[in-house]
């Protein structure tokens, strides 16, 4: 715990928020991109510390959330097959498809296994040469180097009974989709720290310039988020729009070059569907043709699966920063983490699940009123 204080210090937080108050002249709406940031904001109540009129909306950066229902149904269709060992990160097991989740399939006798690293699948495939081992390769740029290495090693080592069901998404095209929407509200972004640890942040420069929005690459600890928010406000108040790095103690502009090299060799960029949002052009990775023999979508006949999302769910608007969880009539009643209706409730990093986990379905307005009514200059507020 000896290093913790600096990024937890209440005095530092007060100073940062005080500086926001000093410079702020009008309301602003910022979006934190990463699900880890959302989780941190809701857990620590950071949104309630901000000056009135500085609003944080929650972005699409939860990989489990945005994995489309069709892809989850495809995964389930493959996992049910008799000769298949289906491997997945633990987070995906509880995400419901149109008919149950991976746990259901496991309980019905399917061989579903949680892996820590994609490389575990190589071991499983070598140990089970008579089975088809399929890995559910989901994620953002942070996970792409790991999944790329699995495909690369499978081909190099000729592990022929191993394939990947790829559903990989990319942050920059999602930001463009949000910004180019006619009902966009977002005026600045807290960029995703660990995504940029892999990819660097140069690819955000053209987005920042084209849409004239500040993008501040930010960590996920409370002081990081407050500091990133202040840096974004400073740009907005000065009329600037550039990419800045709040998280320079962890990452630089270029990211991890060896990782980017392998990712580019294994994957090519193409259109991807995002749960709640729909198809975003050139927003995800697909395996290159050289890896076709390890592409589960090509090996298994699961091409056309039609799915239907509940009409009441507003997760698409939440992921684009247009609405927030408390705007949803189903939040915390019809829709809970145990019975999620849509993208933002299916994973702990989703905005709705975070709101629910920290009790915001219980007294949605009270906390904000308490903070707003906090006496300034020693004068008690009336009412």
């Amino acid at each position, binding site marked *: *715990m*000896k*290093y*913790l204080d*600096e*990024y937890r210090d209440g005095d530092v937080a007060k100073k940062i928020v005080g500086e926001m108050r000093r410079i702020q002249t009008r309301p602003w709406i910022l979006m934190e991109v*990463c*699900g*880890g940031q959302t*989780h*941190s904001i809701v*857990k620590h109540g950071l949104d309630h510390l901000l000056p009135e009129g500085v609003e944080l909306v929650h972005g699409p*950066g*939860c*990989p*489990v959330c945005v994995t489309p229902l069709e892809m989850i149904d495809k995964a389930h269709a493959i996992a049910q097959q008799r000769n298949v060992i289906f491997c997945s*990160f*633990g*987070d995906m097991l509880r995400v419901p498809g149109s008919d149950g989740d991976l746990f259901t399939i496991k309980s019905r006798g399917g061989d579903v*296994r*949680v*892996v*820590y*690293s*994609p*490389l*575990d699948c190589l*071991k*499983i495939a*070598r*140990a*089970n*040469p008579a089975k088809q081992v399929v890995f559910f390769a989901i*994620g*953002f740029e*942070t*996970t792409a*180097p*790991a999944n790329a*290495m699995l495909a690369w*090693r499978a081909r190099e*080592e000729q592990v022929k009974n191993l394939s990947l069901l790829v559903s990989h998404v990319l942050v920059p095209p999602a930001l463009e989709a949000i910004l180019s929407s006619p009902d966009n509200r977002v005026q600045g972004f807290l960029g*995703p720290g*660990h*995504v940029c*640890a*892999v990819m660097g942040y140069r690819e955000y420069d053209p987005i920042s310039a084209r849409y004239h929005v500040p993008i501040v690459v930010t960590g*996920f*600890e409370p002081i990081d988020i407050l500091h990133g928010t202040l840096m974004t406000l400073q740009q907005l108040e000065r009329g600037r729009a550039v990419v800045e790095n709040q998280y320079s*103690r*962890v*990452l630089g502009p270029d990211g*991890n070059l*060896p*990782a980017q090299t*392998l990712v580019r060799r294994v994957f090519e960029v193409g259109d991807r569907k995002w749960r709640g949002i729909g198809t975003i052009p050139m927003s995800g990775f697909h395996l290159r043709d050289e890896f076709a023999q390890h592409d589960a979508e090509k090996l298994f006949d699961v091409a056309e699966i039609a799915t239907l999302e509940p009409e009441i769910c507003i997760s698409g608007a939440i992921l684009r920063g247009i609405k927030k969880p408390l705007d949803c009539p189903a939040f915390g009643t019809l829709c809970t983490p145990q019975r999620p209706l849509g993208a933002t409730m299916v*994973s*702990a*990093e989703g905005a709705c699940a975070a709101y629910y986990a920290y009790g915001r379905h219980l007294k949605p307005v009270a906390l904000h009123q308490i903070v707003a009514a906090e006496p300034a200059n020693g004068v008690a507020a009336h009412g």
Partner: protein
Amino acid sequence: MCLAIPGKVIETFDQRGMRMAKVQFGGIVREACLEYVPETQVGEYVLVHVGFALSRIDEAEAERTYQALRELDQLTELESPVVEEIGPGGQQQ
């Protein structure tokens, strides 16, 4: 699962031509692939995501980030089962 977890490299080894490490996260030791940060040495701290070291960081940052992740319950992936290398005949290799 969008966040990487910091840990200390306590051993490096070769696995089928890949540079690997044993990395300590609090009380848990897991394997991580070092192919993307090949210069990493024993004793250094790395940010690891789903079994891959993605960048090197200093000890203070590692400690701070680890505690922050613990508070956010973001360490559960470390508890995923360990997959041992088993030969097709069932023999551990």
